[in-house]
């Protein structure tokens, strides 16, 4: 299991082109994974247009859109398979532990 280091819930945005379909689908799968990892988080879904100006800690998008966030100080996670919980879990653990948001036991 992982140990969560922040004193507030993590703010996560799932992002797709129009913010209608696939970002919502990713949100539901990401929420399931976070629940399993016991990482407290608020997950919202949105589109590219507004994602860049948001104050979220983490952006999760398809690899197609992840490159749009290059150079952003946020934690960016690009997914190949938007509904594969294993991929989502691996990439979240990797990205968050790299930034010290979680610690692996």
């Amino acid at each position, binding site marked *: 299991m992982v140990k969560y280091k922040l004193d507030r819930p993590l703010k996560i945005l799932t992002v797709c082109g129009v913010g209608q379909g*696939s970002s919502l689908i990713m949100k*539901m799968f990401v929420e399931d994974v976070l629940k399993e990892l016991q990482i407290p988080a608020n997950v919202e879904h949105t589109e590219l247009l507004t994602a860049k100006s948001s104050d979220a800690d983490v952006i999760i998008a398809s690899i197609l859109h992840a490159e749009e966030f290059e150079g952003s100080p946020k934690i960016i996670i690009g997914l*190949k398979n938007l509904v594969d919980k294993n991929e989502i879990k691996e990439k979240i653990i990797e990205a968050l532990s790299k930034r010290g948001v979680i610690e692996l036991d």
Partner: protein
Amino acid sequence: MTAIMDILMWIGNNILGQPAVLLGIVAFVGLILQKKPFSETLVGTVKVMIGVVMMLAGANLFVNELVSFQSLITAATGVSPKYPPNYIPLNDLISQYGSYAAVIMTVAFILHLILVRVIPKFRHVYLTGHLMWWLSLVVVAVTLTVNPNASARQIIGIGAVVLAIYWTIQPAYIHHAMRDITGSDAIGYAHTSSLVALVSYHLGKYIGNPEESTEKMNLPKSLSFLKDYAVSTAIILGLIMVAAAVVGYVKAPDTISSLAGDLNPIIWAILRGIYFAAAIVVLLTGVKMFVGEIVPAFKGISDKVIPGAIPAVDAPVVFPYAPTAVIVGFLSGLGVFLLMMGLFIAAGFAVIVPPMIMLFFPGGAAAVFGNKTGGWKGAVFAGALNGLVLAIGQALTLQFLTYGTELATLGDPDWYALIVVLKGLLGVIF
């Protein structure tokens, strides 16, 4: 008896007649079923109601901007869009009949779950919420177009059955292609581009070579702005309107001046492109707000009723498997659409407006399917086919859909197929 009638009338006016109230109730029940805490349930329900009102405001803006666009093209070319006589605009359709669509969406989803639960051949659960909403509205519009006196029971019954069948079979008939693209059975495809995607997948091998994949191409990075639908809408529509304003000003300066009012016609045309994009952003943000609360409830129910069902999701799920193909398909579709727009105007046949979202998502997704079997040529073909279907679909639908006529400009390929088939079937029934 009169007391009962009064109660029914009251429910009809205050609940069934108000899409914001009805969708609020659907979301409220969904959140309760998910056992969400009271605060989340309250927030979610209010968000849905705000979303519905935003959608209405967005539809209003959109209808107005569409008229500006079409009037300008008419002023420049002399060709006018042929709306059906006495048509009901989209904003009125949503405010008057939006609750019918909300009931259809809910009932059709339950019927869909039953079909998937009962027939072993079907394993996919359709989760693309915004399309469930739009299609529900489309079937209401078609039913009313065929029979303006259709009863509530008829509209809801027809809509729910038709959509339950469509949501059940669509992910199934395209799944062999999905399996080929994603390499697994874990994801289904639930999008109203399915027919163009399927045709492109099967014709790809006659058109090109999968070895010559789009993913070996290098597209300029500067094209990446195209992925942002609001920006591409503002730019492409703005350019067309500036061109039309210039041509129109040469031909009929008075007409253009009266459209532009106090503003310089070019500045006015640029602003209309921006307003058009903003109208779509408001419309879709509204839809996003209520769909975002309802779909998780639908998924929650489906997880309980059909454990192990395959989630069938929105088109971008295939984009990571060939990101370059997406841009290729969008560009070839846009090219064909603009060409058809010019041809239709030259022939005096129709004024169509480029639907950037529908050129990008269905065109891009179809191109991923076309690229899989036909490489870059398959991708170009897929986008072009999408552009062709959207152009013809919009031109024809705008001329006969009496209710929510502007839906013609928001349609994906399957919408037009559904509209034509349903109209034909209902013509026989009514």
